[in-house]
């Protein structure tokens, strides 16, 4: 049996194949059976190595920079044409769920749909771990006189009007847990938009109900000034240095 030589494959093809470890297998495969097996191995190896390849640190760094173009140099958020939310210190499971919701159009945002559907699971893991580790100070800028009322609603709820205490699920410092998002330091206008427009943006596929249903009655029950107060309060919250997330 002889290995493939330049009479059976062209020079360019040979060079291309030699660039990949699996390609060398193919080149040395020899018989036709070996060649076919080699093709299969090459294709499979290509698929597997593609997944591993994008966790090379250069690719992750490039993707992080890309996210930060909009979300801020330390993912603290940015007041773009739309308020672009803080991702710093965010719960990894929450970000992952939102990315999936964007892809499946359960959460409506054309820009984020395009961002999300090109991310592999490995890339998502790398990104969410990176964002969770960041802890820049909040952007701030919310009306200060609303913060005290917001704190009361956040910590105690308003049981007389059936508004649950945010702290019960989001934590006493609004750091979130698991699928429940961190709110500490979130942008004031982003919180307003999110709570005011909850049903228009989240849980948009009635045949695939998701966690957005949990917040729907809350967003419904809060009136506009309560939303402003809570949004102002959480936008001021920051985590102590070195502990951007409380690990649950």
């Amino acid at each position, binding site marked *: 049996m002889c290995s493939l030589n330049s009479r059976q494959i062209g020079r360019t093809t040979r060079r291309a194949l030699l660039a990949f470890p699996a390609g060398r297998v193919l080149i040395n495969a020899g018989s036709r059976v070996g060649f076919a097996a080699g093709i299969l191995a090459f294709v499979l190896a290509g698929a597997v190595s593609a997944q591993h390849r994008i966790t090379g640190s250069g690719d992750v760094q490039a993707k992080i920079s890309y996210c930060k173009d909009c979300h801020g140099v330390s993912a603290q958020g940015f007041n773009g044409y739309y308020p672009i939310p803080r991702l710093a210190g965010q719960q990894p499971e929450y970000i992952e769920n939102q990315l999936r919701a964007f892809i499946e159009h359960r959460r409506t945002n054309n820009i984020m749909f395009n961002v999300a559907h090109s991310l592999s699971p490995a890339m998502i893991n790398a990104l969410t771990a990176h964002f969770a580790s960041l802890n820049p100070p909040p952007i701030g800028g919310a009306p200060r006189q609303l913060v005290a009322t917001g704190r009361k609603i956040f910590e105690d709820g308003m049981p007389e009007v*059936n508004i649950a205490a945010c702290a019960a699920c989001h934590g006493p410092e609004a750091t979130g*847990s698991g699928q429940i998002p961190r709110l500490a330091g979130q942008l004031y206008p982003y919180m307003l938009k999110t709570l005011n427009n909850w049903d228009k943006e989240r849980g948009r596929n009635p045949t695939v109900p998701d966690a957005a249903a949990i917040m729907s009655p809350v967003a419904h*029950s809060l009136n506009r000034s309560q939303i402003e107060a809570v949004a102002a309060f959480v936008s001021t919250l920051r985590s102590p240095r070195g502990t951007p997330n409380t690990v649950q």
Partner: protein
Amino acid sequence: MTPKRQRRWAFRSSAGAAIGPAAVLALFLASPAAAQGNVSKAEADAKLRYCEVCHGVSAQGFHGYYPIPRLAGQPTEYLKNQLQAFVERRRTSNIMFNVGHVLSPAMIDALTTDFNQLDPKPLGGAPKGNIDEGKKIFEEGVPQANVPACASCHGPAAKGNGPFPRLAGQLYDYVTNKLTNWEKERGQNPAQPDISAVMQPIAHSLTQPQIKAVAAYVSYLE
């Protein structure tokens, strides 16, 4: 010094928050008829939905920042006792204190009846490694540590009865936390001893692995 106009707006918006339309409606509904023990279905449903924001859409429990317990299938007497304990601060929970102290007796009746009749599947998720040990402790106790069988009060299927809570389907980490922290959270008024004293020596005597085994076992019971 904030300008006069801004200060007036600050007062208005906080007043507006305090006297929202729902509160006005609540005042209207707090007529003599309501005080005597009638609560409208709409009010009771709204309150139930509010409870379910934290306790789960069928009161099956929820992993919030803290594990929030299952209320579905709970005996009404147990729920009433706990609500009273929260309000009297014999059981410490700031959030539940706030929830509890605005509930009228009629509302409590309506809510506890609703919860008792719910029957969702357990939330699940507990580690399964020590369930057999948990079953043994539940059914036989730990005689050498003077721990009676849980079944003797909580029932053979952990469904509870009267003042004894249902444990079947309760969240694993909730049961673990409560048994581990029993003394710190229950019976907090020594001048007003309550039924939580029954569990105190049991919670004290169980080791951590035993607590986790029993908690895992009951968490899967339906």
